[in-house]
């Protein structure tokens, strides 16, 4: 017999935990699966460990708040399975999960995908060298392992995350060799018309961001308007070149470079399920098409958190609750009227949480250069495909991402296109006078996370119902 639950939540971050807690208030049978060893998602990664070790202070109040939610989640009565990955979801709904080398099938009435986001791939010459990582990665090792770069680090990027990380790093005793701000000049001005709304919704966030920036400019070597980066070294980063908008070029010694150009929703699961997706022109990414409750075009499949469109930690929690509320209504635990009453304050809260987004999206719109890598830059890290190979195929008349995948192997490696899908789409759009929303991304098929033949074969022992 397959395991059967009412609601399967995928991802134990702010959205997934909030949904589980809410659904448990009404006694639903909830199973939460997550790839990590402990709950918290990326934003609250390692929160239990950090609290125990007393490291949480360095990371700020917003991080420490996560402990309250994690504690509530731990005691809410939802079954929580860590170190478990989901690699297939079939209509019906049937979910294939693998953990500790064993695969099983869970039948569920509702699925909530709370799989969050990933950092946008940032290809540039040398980005595969050891010593280049994402800012998010640097922050994750600070959160989960309490570690900082051993030598002064270079940070290059655009967005709130590099500012936050730089602030946390200095507080933790780390050193910054230089902060290369890649925010295109003039973007603050272009974002200004949207600032009022941001200030009304979340004034403290804007004040906080400004304080981080001012602090950083005072304490670190801050270089504004950086337009290009190139990294060199024999088997690891040894030096880097950067160029600014006014043409100043500089070569510096470097051992570690952290990069960041925003985040994009995790859509492999919804793409695999065949859900409809929409292009978000502000966030330059696809997100699943959802109704006000977060339900996708596939019935009973919900998406909450940054996977529903980048909204941040507050929005993620409310979205999780809203989706759980809808599940409770559909399941008959709450009447339409009761549900509507609970929905109204949540909707206002979500609106407030999302208020700064339009401003942030405009201010931190990534520079075009990251979508137009030079010919000899690796685009697909796994299969080592350079930009010129994609352009060559485009010149031969091929413009569909899947065709390019078949011809060049770009997107066929273990990461399954997660690090090259947007870059390839942008290159193709650019080369063939099309747009990324016209072209879409690679088709995603299960298993959307790799699994071994052993793990797959273990299904047979678990007596899967057909």
């Amino acid at each position, binding site marked *: 017999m397959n395991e059967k639950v009412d609601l399967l939540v995928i991802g134990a971050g702010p959205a997934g935990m909030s949904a589980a807690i809410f659904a448990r208030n009404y006694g639903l049978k909830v199973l939460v699966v997550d790839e990590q060893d402990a709950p918290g998602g990326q934003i609250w990664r390692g929160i239990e460990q950090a609290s125990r070790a007393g490291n949480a202070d360095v990371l700020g109040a917003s991080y420490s708040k996560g402990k309250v939610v994690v504690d509530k989640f731990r005691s809410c009565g939802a079954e929580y399975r860590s170190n478990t990955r989901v690699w297939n979801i079939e209509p019906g709904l049937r979910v294939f999960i693998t953990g500790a080398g064993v695969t099983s099938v869970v039948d569920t009435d509702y699925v909530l995908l709370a799989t969050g986001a990933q950092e946008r791939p940032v290809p540039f010459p040398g980005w595969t060298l050891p010593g280049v990582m994402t800012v998010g990665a640097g922050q*994750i090792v600070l959160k989960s*392992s309490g*570690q900082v770069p051993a030598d002064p680090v270079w940070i290059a990027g655009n967005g709130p995350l590099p500012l936050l990380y730089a602030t946390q790093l200095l507080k933790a005793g780390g050193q910054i060799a230089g902060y290369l701000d890649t925010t295109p000049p003039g973007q603050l001005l272009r974002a200004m018309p949207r600032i009022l709304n941001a200030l009304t919704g979340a004034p403290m966030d804007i004040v906080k961001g400004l304080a981080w920036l001012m602090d950083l400019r005072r304490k670190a070597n801050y270089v504004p308007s950086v337009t290009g980066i190139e990294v060199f070294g024999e*088997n690891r980063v040894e030096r880097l070149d950067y160029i600014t908008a006014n043409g100043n070029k500089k070569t510096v010694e470097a051992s570690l470079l952290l990069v960041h150009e925003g985040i994009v929703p995790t859509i492999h699961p919804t793409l695999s399920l065949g859900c409809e997706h929409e292009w978000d022109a502000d966030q330059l990414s696809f997100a699943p098409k959802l109704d006000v409750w977060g339900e996708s075009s596939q019935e009973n499949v919900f998406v909450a958190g940054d996977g529903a469109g980048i909204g941040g930690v507050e929005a993620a929690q409310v979205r999780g609750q809203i989706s759980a509320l809808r599940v409770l209504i559909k399941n008959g635990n709450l009447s339409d009227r009761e549900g509507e009453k609970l929905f109204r304050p949540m909707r206002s809260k979500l609106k407030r949480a999302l208020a700064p987004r339009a401003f942030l999206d405009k201010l931190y719109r990534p520079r075009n250069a990251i979508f137009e890598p030079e010919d000899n830059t690796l685009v697909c890290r796994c299969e080592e495909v350079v930009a010129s190979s994609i352009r060559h195929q485009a010149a031969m008349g091929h413009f569909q991402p899947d065709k390019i995948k078949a011809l060049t192997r770009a997107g066929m490696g273990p990461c399954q296109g997660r690090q090259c899908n947007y870059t390839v789409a942008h290159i193709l759009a650019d080369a063939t006078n099309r747009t990324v929303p016209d072209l879409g991304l690679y088709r995603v098929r299960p298993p959307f996370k790799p699994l071994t033949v052993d793990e797959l074969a273990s299904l047979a022992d678990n007596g899967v119902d057909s």
Partner: protein
Amino acid sequence: MFQKTHEITGNEVTIYIDGTPVVAEVGETVAAVLLRQRSLWSRTSLLSGEPRAPYCMMGVCFECIAIIDGAFSTQTCLITVCDGMRVERQLGCPRILV
């Protein structure tokens, strides 16, 4: 290369990276330990054999894959350490691509 901001006291384990014993802290991932090593890499790439190192730390880039207790292509950023764990850097397999 990274370093801890605190001493590992009381909750340390030993893992072996390519046979060399290395101290790690309970609860941290194998990739985090790899990042503290002087030779900062986890595998070589499939075609050109270039060294690669943990890049995203959240399970999406697959650059940190290594052989853990004999299991190939394990994402070291998703696996937490345990005492006696054997980690081997994974060399790409050019033979099967020829």
